[in-house]
């Protein structure tokens, strides 16, 4: 008597011989997919995509980092331009002269109103056509040396400045626990002695940085001179009118205006003197810093700093990318799981 299992084996559906032959043929051909009618078949390239995808992703990442770094460099350059513009705005004249004239013309003007503007506004008259240009020269030196030598260098700075006909307006040496840690000097030397003085100072220690700049202040200078001339002329005129004044009120009014004009002339003289001093004497700032024992390794340090900076940039980029990719991946996976579960349930329902 055959068991149920034996009978089940006997009734196992077996493939038709024609179908078996057809499958053999398909197996030999590598199971080509049947052509679907009405739908163009998309043929994918036969290469394995993983290395290609990794290379493409790496290239894309490198490009994005490079673009980010380039953008950062542009930002830096932009801020530098702003600084240059601010420095350049110092030159030029105050249109404040017109304001002063209006104040002086008014009989009730106060002395405060009559004071000239301390800083000329930007885009003021640059005094084109003036042959004798007035240029304010500024130089900055950063000297690196042994802290034990700072005292000697400080004395040498005073000596060189004096020898070149200049003077020291400000000096300071910073004392640390054991020795000097730095120093700062503000010097004025005649313009024609600027280069020799800088050369002398540069020999005192290792020059870490040396910058020189010149600012044309001819406009300011000419304006001050003209305004002083006009103020003097006005004073002369007021004095003549005072001589001819017949009433007490007119005398008092003229005296008040003369006082204002006198103050103004004093202020303008001071400004002119200051402007002349600034153009006749160059400003040198000397900064003393501790000589870095690892100065010879500065390029290596710089390279290391760059490498660390690049890594930080990369990390920042990855964090930002993760901030986008992570939620997108989580959402994508959730959708995929839901879709997969729905498809599975739909399949199982076909067995119900």
């Amino acid at each position, binding site marked *: 008597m055959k068991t149920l299992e034996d009978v089940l084996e006997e009734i196992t559906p077996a493939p038709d011989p024609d179908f078996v032959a057809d499958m053999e043929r398909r197996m030999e051909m590598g*199971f080509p997919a*049947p052509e679907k009618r009405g739908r163009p078949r998309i043929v994918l390239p036969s290469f394995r995509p993983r290395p290609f995808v990794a290379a493409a992703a790496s290239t894309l990442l490198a490009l994005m980092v490079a673009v980010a770094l380039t953008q950062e460099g542009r930002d830096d350059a932009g801020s530098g331009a702003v600084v240059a513009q601010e420095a350049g705005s110092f030159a030029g004249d105050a249109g404040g002269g017109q304001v002063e004239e209006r104040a002086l013309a008014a009989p009730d003007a106060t002395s405060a109103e009559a004071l000239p503007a301390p800083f000329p506004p930007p885009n003021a008259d640059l005094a084109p056509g003036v042959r004798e240009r007035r240029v304010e020269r500024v130089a900055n030196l950063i000297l690196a040396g042994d802290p034990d030598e700072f005292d000697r260098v400080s004395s040498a700075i005073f000596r060189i400045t004096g020898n070149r006909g200049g003077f020291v307006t400000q000096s300071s040496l910073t004392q640390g626990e054991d020795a000097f840690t730095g120093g700062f000097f503000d010097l004025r030397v005649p313009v024609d002695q600027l280069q020799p003085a800088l050369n002398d100072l540069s020999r005192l220690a290792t020059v870490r940085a040396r910058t020189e700049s010149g600012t044309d202040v001819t406009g300011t200078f000419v304006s001050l001179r003209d305004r002083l001339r006009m103020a003097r002329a006005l004073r002369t005129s007021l004095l003549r009118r005072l001589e001819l004044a017949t009433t007490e009120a007119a005398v008092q009014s003229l005296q008040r205006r003369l006082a204002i004009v006198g103050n103004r002339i004093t202020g303008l003289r001071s400004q002119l003197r200051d402007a002349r001093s600034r153009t006749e004497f160059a400003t040198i700032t000397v900064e003393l810093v501790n000589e870095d024992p690892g100065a010879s390794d500065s390029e290596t340090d710089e390279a290391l700093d760059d490498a660390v900076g690049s890594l930080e940039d990369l990390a920042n980029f990855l964090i930002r990318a993760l901030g986008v990719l992570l939620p997108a991946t989580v959402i994508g996976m959730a959708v995929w799981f839901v879709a997969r579960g729905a498809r599975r349930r739909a399949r199982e329902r076909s067995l119900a």
Partner: protein
Amino acid sequence: MKRRDQRSCGMSEAIAAPVSGTFERAGASPSEAFEALYRRSFPRVYGYVAAMLRDRAAAEEVTAQAFERAYRRRRSFRASRGTEEAWLFGIARNAALDELRRRRRRAAMEHEPVDLTAPGAEEQAEDALRREAVRAALARLEPRERELVALRFFGGLSHEEIGRVLGISPSNAGTRVHRALEKLRRECDEDA
């Protein structure tokens, strides 16, 4: 399961020869390994699919489709996730269920699969009656129960492999197969 390795179902010995191990064997390319899998599992896959669909033409189409899919995805097979047979039967099952869902065919079996192992005229009539009774009882089973019987006896899968295909534990698969077989037995006894 002894029948699994013994079954030939009329195929050549080369086709029925069992090979064990992982999909990519030492010294064999994925294509060669897949060919070996095809040769030892093709009739069993067909038997399982035919029992699910109960339509010869649909069974042939789905069987071919299952092997095509498996061939295209042969590199995605991971031995850690189960045997090659479990992987292949999983693909075949999905294809069969898709076919069932798409065509909404359930009960109407237009053509009974040809039984290539049918006995000759000399066989006793009692055996023929017995087979017909089992076929009829199998047709009365619930689709899920019929699938379990088909996986176990037509597909020749172990309980562990059935569990892999259906996404259940091996012990659960064994329990379900046992219950389906008992139900089939009762159905047969009722017919008798």
